[in-house]
């Protein structure tokens, strides 16, 4: 199966660590993905609040390029991207009139038969647990890891059709494969404040603070995510939150791909773990025999 890869803007910018680590583990797993040529913005939070047709047309163009290029499956690691691609695909599948309108404006056919995977679906469904397990060279035993899912991976459940929308476990299963211990806590899908980070940082700090302190209370060493915006709120805002609530957190926030990479024996530097705001080296020292830090 030919696998298309839709990076979206985050993986090329603020969350470059996500792309670096993803490509690195795919290389180790010997899985080839091809970046969709001439891809454009998925629309994310802006388009669907302004123009419905545009919010469908933007992701549809990316999907159509991939489909016409002979791809059957697309990987969208960013949770917002996969959410938008799936939503557009769902609307095109269920609304023939809209489909005609959109494909006419794209001047491209689109059959809407593409399988769209978020990062976790891709790892569990396309790569497979067995293959991942067989690649684990450095089990991360002794490490307690909390998986934070956020909202976009699981909601709306009717369209995402992914895991239990209120109590997802897929990422915890991946964590367990690395040899680390998954930590259960109460705010797995609670809102992190998302894009309000720019307009209402106080709201974001309150919401993200709730999540981080709950994770801390449940004894986790670090947090894994599969969403660039979640990552940015949990990682970048952490120092401010600590100052605001006058309580230390010190929770490194890694992408799931980085955690897998570590267990595959890839160095933190090659996974770009040094690119985060909350340094992970103190926590990573807990892992025995991990290749040299930075």
């Amino acid at each position, binding site marked *: 199966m030919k696998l298309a890869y839709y990076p979206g803007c985050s993986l090329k910018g603020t969350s470059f660590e996500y792309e670096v680590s993803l490509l690195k583990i795919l290389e180790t797993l010997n899985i080839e993905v091809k970046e969709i040529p001439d891809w454009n913005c998925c629309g994310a939070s802006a388009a669907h609040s302004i123009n419905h047709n545009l919010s469908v047309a933007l992701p549809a163009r990316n999907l159509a390029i991939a489909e016409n290029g002979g791809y059957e499956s697309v990987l969208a690691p960013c949770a917002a991207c996969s959410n938008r691609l799936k939503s557009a695909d769902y609307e095109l599948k269920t609304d023939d009139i809209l489909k005609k309108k959109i494909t006419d404006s794209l001047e491209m056919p689109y059959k809407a038969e593409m399988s769209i995977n978020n990062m976790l679906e891709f790892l569990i469904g396309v790569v497979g647990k067995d293959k991942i397990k067989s690649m684990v060279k450095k089990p991360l035993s002794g490490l307690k890891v909390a998986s934070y899912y956020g909202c976009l991976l699981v909601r709306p459940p009717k369209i995402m059709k992914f895991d239990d929308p209120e109590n997802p476990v897929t990422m915890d299963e991946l964590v367990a494969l690395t040899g680390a211990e998954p930590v259960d806590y109460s705010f797995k899908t*609670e809102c992190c404040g998302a894009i309000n980070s720019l307009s209402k940082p106080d709201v974001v700090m309150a919401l993200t603070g709730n999540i981080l302190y709950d994770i801390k209370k449940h004894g986790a060493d670090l947090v894994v995510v599969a969403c660039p915006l979640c990552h940015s709120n949990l990682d970048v805002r952490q120092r401010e939150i600590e100052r605001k609530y006058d309580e230390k957190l010190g929770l490194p926030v890694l992408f799931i791909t980085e955690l897998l990479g570590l267990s595959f024996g890839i160095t933190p530097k090659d996974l770009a773990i040094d690119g985060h705001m909350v340094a992970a080296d103190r926590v990573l020292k807990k892992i025995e025999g991990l290749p040299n830090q930075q």
Partner: protein
Amino acid sequence: MARIGVFVCWCGSNIAGTVDVEKVREEAAKIPGVVSALDYKYMCSDPGQNSLRNIIKEKNLTGIVLAACSPHMHENTFRKAAAKEGLNPYFVEIANIREQVSWVHEDKERATAKAVDLMKMMVEKVKRDKPIEDVRVPLNKKALVIGGGIAGIQAALDIANGGVEVILVEKEPSIGGKMIQLDETFPTLDCSSCIMTPKMVEANQHPNIKLYTYSEVEDISGYIGNFKVKIKKKARSVVEKDCTGCGECWNACPMHKNIKSEFNVNLSERTAIYVPFPQAVPLVPVLDRSVCLHFKKGGKCQKCYDACGPKCINFDLQDEIIEETVGAIVASTGYDLMDTSMYGEYGYGKYKDVISGLQFERILSASGPTEGVIKRPSDGKTPQTIVFVQCVGSRDPEKGVPYCSKVCCMYTAKHAKLFAHKVHGSQSYVFYIDIRSTSKGYEEFVRSTMEQDGAIYLRGRVSKIYEDEGKLIVKGADTLSGNQVEIAADMVVLATGVIPKKGSDKLAQMLGISYDKYGFFTESHPKLRPAESSTAGIFLAGMAQGPRDIPESVVSGSAAASKILGLFSKNEYEVEGTIAGVNEATCVACFYCQRVCAYNAISRKEIKDRSGKLVKVVANVNPGLCTGCGACVNACFSKSIDVKGFMDDQIYAEIKALAI
């Protein structure tokens, strides 16, 4: 030569306001074979019926057409009137010019033309009518009640008190159903088991009731008056007639850990040999072979046998099949509570102190796991704050079911009230969508829970429940104040939705009765035949039909019983003669009719010559089951089936009358 009378009814202005009734009469008089045509203000009135009878006599009529209201209204009235003059009642036909013409059209001229057409069609039909005799089916005057909850017990007692034998079959080791699990009942706070146990005992001791507990109906065939029933009596491993219910056996059983008590909804443990609860009827234990050491470890353990005085434990007992023939059946299989696993956000199953309403009933109950002292499952402490969440699964088309479970508003009010009575100074919160308290005394009951017992009612849904430092944090919305609320509770009680008993759809298929998309049995008519199923001789009672409370279940049990007693007051059951008949000469025995028949009315019939040699196989219609729906007529390739009163030649003649 046909001598037809046509009677055009005005129905006051109901018909005459839109249809020119005189014109219809004039047109009728012109049709060959019509010897009398009349219009009258109210044909159904006494003078109307009398004129009908007089004309039958005077003109020696061979058939009658009434251009009037729907046959559902007065077909029977006119058939009876005709029969009194010696005419076969099936020689009365109705042209419906009210519901199908005057009530649905405005243009008088065109409405009149349509009324004339319908009248003409019926004249052609009645000309070709043949006399039809009603079918009489003999009745076995014995009833079967499936399900021994309050509805089934009430039905069984009422039938038995009417002097008719009843077989009561219950799947569980004891009768009593869900009601015996409840603590106190709303709105009177009667102790549920105090009012239930006398009924259970009465059912057990009634000379007309044969009770089969720990038994299931395996197979049902036949039809009204003559149902053949196979009942599987599961091996109890205890000889019922010798058992005294002393309890030595279950006290001796070494398996007293890790087997969850079904009766206490997993809040306590039971032994392998057990009675579900102390007031069980019959008070005879059941040995659960799936967990018993004797069966799991090759016969080594027999501590219960050793302890038993009368030696009534028999490890070799086998399942038994009992066959019975009954004339009528009550299906009262009850309900289950919805599994709340789709509400991951409420943490049921994850947090020990998030429990269901039925579990709270057991905690309240004096015979429950905490002997009526309110203690929470996690650490046995008495909670000071409880949050009750209503509509968990009910009224939620996204995750649960769209319908209202009806009893939750009331039992939640009762829970909050009893909590306030038992734990002084405590506080309860109730999240609700609407309060539905529509029966006698219900609204006052809910009000007093709010006003006297201090329960705080919050209109809104709960979005999340999580644990934080020993408290359950309940996050929700109060839509009346427009605020988000967060309550730190010691325990949370979920009012989980009501769904049909597991397996009730299978039973419905076995019985040949219809059920809705949720699995609730559907009544023959939602307003006018609420106790009858879609199949003659099978009646419905209790929650198996849909959510209802105890008084309604009792009423429905009694209703089913009175229907059966009414049925059994005659020796034969009369079935309308308009049923399917097979032309055996042309039937090719393809049995396509059998496949389309929804009522299992078609069977194979072997025709043999005098020497007993098989000549041919044909389809045969069971008059007790056939409803005359006509599905088989359409399915028959060789045109060998017709429904009496709706023969092909009649239908063609009607169409022709319309075409001319």
